[in-house]
């Protein structure tokens, strides 16, 4: 069996290794136009900030690929011929496959803004984007970042670390409150501002101004304000990167459409990671998961499926983590976002505690007093414990009593549990 994997991001390289563990004989080829060796995409920011060199962000030492007989091909894929079972490359001979895995990743959204293709306007997803940004650094006076997600803040933090003033245009009334409840979103907003980043809420991009040479020199906001800048970061979300399969007969919607075993309708073609659109039954919105660890989970299920074990993907209890400048965020289970959006589930309520200095908070979401989710800022929570409590639908009063079991803060840190208990017991129905 000859397996070609397009993409060497987390989904791609995890699939290669997972497949090798199950099948010592398969011929495995991993193609990437982006980099010779797999690296950690979330670590791109640390290269720019000088915390690490590019080679430090590789999850495995270079010899691992050879030892596992995973052939690496450095080329961009220009097309897929499913009839001839062949992958066309921008240089070198086409690659024949028995089974094809698409791990194409994401590309940044553009919403038809005037000037969005000018020089100096970029997303921040790839190693190429990092190089582009590095080239724009000379003499850079200000950057404007459009969109208030995690990548937007990463980009702001990066530029700020190299003393470039940054303005962030965020459409919502609080930072990231299509994910965070209002209280948390406000806390994060304050942290961003304390760092010295010019955060503009309820603010939109109208156009990007061409300086005359095809390079961006300013943006104009929705209220007509012009902000001079040498770099415009477009970080209003990402979407599946489908360029490699354009023109092929592999069915795509927003992403490559696959079932919950990651099979596409095209024979022996699979898709995992950010580019996969998991098709759900009629009436439900298809699922696209753009997280690091979901890429790893997809790869494990796929390797079983490809080696003949019947398996469907179940993500289990939701979790995620992030860091907003210096403020860490952990979440377990789904917690309803702010901004007056619809609740995740009927009857969801929550109890909330925030430290008076605005650098720690905890929210416990519940339905009729039974725990369904946790959000924490500046307070580390143990994943295994939180997920177990959610699975057991433990009573919130019991959760409060046993809260120290979930504490994952470093040793000798101040314990907030007594205060949290006091505040939250008051709020319980």
């Amino acid at each position, binding site marked *: 069996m000859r397996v070609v994997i397009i993409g060497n991001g987390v989904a791609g390289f995890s699939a290669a290794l997972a497949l090798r563990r199950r099948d010592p004989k398969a011929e495995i080829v991993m193609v990437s136009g982006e980099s010779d060796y797999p690296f950690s995409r979330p670590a791109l920011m*640390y290269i720019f900030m000088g915390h*690490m060199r590019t080679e430090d*962000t590789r*999850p495995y030492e270079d010899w691992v690929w050879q030892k596992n007989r995973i052939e690496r091909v450095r080329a961009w894929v220009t097309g897929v011929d499913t009839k001839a079972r062949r992958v066309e490359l921008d240089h070198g001979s086409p690659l024949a496959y028995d089974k094809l895995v698409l791990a194409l990743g994401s590309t940044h959204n553009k919403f038809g803004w005037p000037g969005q293709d000018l020089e100096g306007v970029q997303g921040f997803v790839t190693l190429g984007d990092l190089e582009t940004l590095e080239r724009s650094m000379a003499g850079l006076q200000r950057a404007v970042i459009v969109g208030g997600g995690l990548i937007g803040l990463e980009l702001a933090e990066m530029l700020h670390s190299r003393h470039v003033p940054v303005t962030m245009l965020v459409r919502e009334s609080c930072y990231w409150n299509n994910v965070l409840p209002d209280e948390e979103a406000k806390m994060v907003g304050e942290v961003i501002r304390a760092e*010295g980043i010019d955060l503009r809420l309820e603010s939109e991009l109208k156009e990007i101004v061409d300086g005359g040479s095809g390079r961006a020199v300013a943006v104009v906001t929705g209220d007509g*304000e012009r902000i001079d800048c040498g770099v415009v970061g477009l970080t209003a979300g990402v979407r599946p990167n489908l360029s490699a399969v354009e023109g092929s007969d592999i069915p795509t919607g927003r992403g490559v459409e696959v079932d919950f075993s990651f099979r596409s309708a095209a024979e022996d073609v699979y898709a995992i990671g950010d580019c996969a659109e998991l098709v759900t039954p009629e009436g439900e919105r298809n699922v696209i998961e753009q997280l690091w660890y979901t890429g790893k989970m997809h790869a494990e299920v796929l390797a079983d499926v490809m080696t003949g074990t019947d398996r469907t993907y179940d993500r289990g209890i939701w979790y995620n983590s992030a860091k907003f400048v210096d403020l860490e965020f952990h979440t377990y289970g789904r917690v309803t976002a702010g901004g007056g959006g619809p609740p995740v589930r009927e009857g969801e309520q929550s109890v909330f505690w925030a430290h008076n200095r605005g650098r720690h908070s905890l929210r416990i979401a519940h339905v009729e007093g039974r725990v369904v989710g946790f959000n924490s800022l500046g307070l580390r929570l143990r994943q295994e414990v939180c997920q177990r409590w959610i699975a057991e639908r433990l009573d919130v009063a019991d959760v409060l009593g046993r809260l120290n079991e979930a504490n994952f803060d470093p040793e000798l840190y101040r314990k907030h549990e007594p205060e949290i208990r006091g505040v939250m017991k008051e709020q319980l129905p």
Partner: protein
Amino acid sequence: MNAVAQATTQAPPDTGDHAGSTRKTWQAVGLALTAVGLLQFALALARVPIGRGWFALLLFLGPVSLGSTLYYAARYHGTTPGIKNNSTVTGALGSLGVVAFGLGVLLTGFYILLYWYPKGIAGATALSDPLSRVLRGAPADQYFLYSFLYTVAVVLFGVRFIYRYRHNRYQIVRTFSVMFCQLGLAFLVPSFLRLLGQKEHYFTYFWPLSYNNLFPNSITGLWADGHAFTIFIVFWSFVISLVAVPILTYFVGKRWYCSWVCGCGGLAETAGDSFRHKSSKTLRAWRFERWSIHLVLVFIVVTTALLWLNLFWGGAILGKASFHFARIYGFGVGMVLAGVVGVGFYPLLGNRVWCRFFCPQAALLGIFQRFLSRFRITTNGGQCMSCGNCSKYCEMGIDVRSYAQRGDNIVRASCVGCGICAAVCPRGVLKLENGQTHADRFDGAAKPLAEMMKSLKS
């Protein structure tokens, strides 16, 4: 477009560096003061210090202490607390450039002079003389100078470390501990002992690191001395090496010593903090380390055993070999590996070269930690995103990420428990902790002996 042009405003200045110019001024003042102190030291080396006696010494110590503290206070004041490793790998000291090599040459050169050409630093030794007379009631020699400079470095770079990690209570408490152990137990106490006419005993070093402590000739010598205090030292040497080491390590891991008490560790954690990322994380380096450090341990254990046997059998097997051994070991391990390479190579190979590759104490503590200890670094579920900060900033060269990204706990003989991996992790994935038992740390941990045999075979 006219409306747009009218609405054009100057974007507000970046407020992150507010009062930035004041901070820069104070930093410059701090640097200038430090430079004055260092200049005095250089003049002393050249035997032309400004002033004499206490005045000359204080003209070095005062400006260096004040200046560096001022510099770090100004540098970190007004910045938000948190991990700020910006430009660490690209800066002059952090990368492997001319500055790093130059510093390596300077440090190495200092150790060579210290051990083999003390006349070359006699001017600096003279500078420390007034302090030696007060503390020890004796004129300074080059080892007093060394101990003095070492302590100054641990304390002043300790101040820097505390500023840098001021958001992290584990780091603050730990750093106070290494500063106290160096200044109090490894500098002042031995000096006072000497002043009182006792043996200059270092309570923070013991066998096998301080190999002499359990050698028969030192023990019998002290015993023969017969003073209550020397008898206590004999007793203490046995208790700490043979009883306290396994028990403490069982409960909290080897960190109680390596990153909280030990002077070598103290210097590495404070003065060496800027170089922690330079340790090699490759499998090759780990393989080398496993051989080198355990060979040193075997060497010292076998020799100690032979010396005792020799004593019991009346010198039948070794004769006067103990004297020669002490010289060879002292030269090779004590001076070359611990001093010249161990500290001189900080800017090139990282701040724990000695601790990682050669220290027999670390090797012994490591064996307990790996097989029979409650200490582990817990990985928080599946949150690791393989960024590599933990591995990059591990001074012991442990590829922490390789465990964290599999969701495994980190249980390694070499881990000194400094806690920096957990501090730099941007997702809060790692936690140093002592569990309720040693048995739940990894598969097979319940059977330490079987696990040890397995480890020997691999």
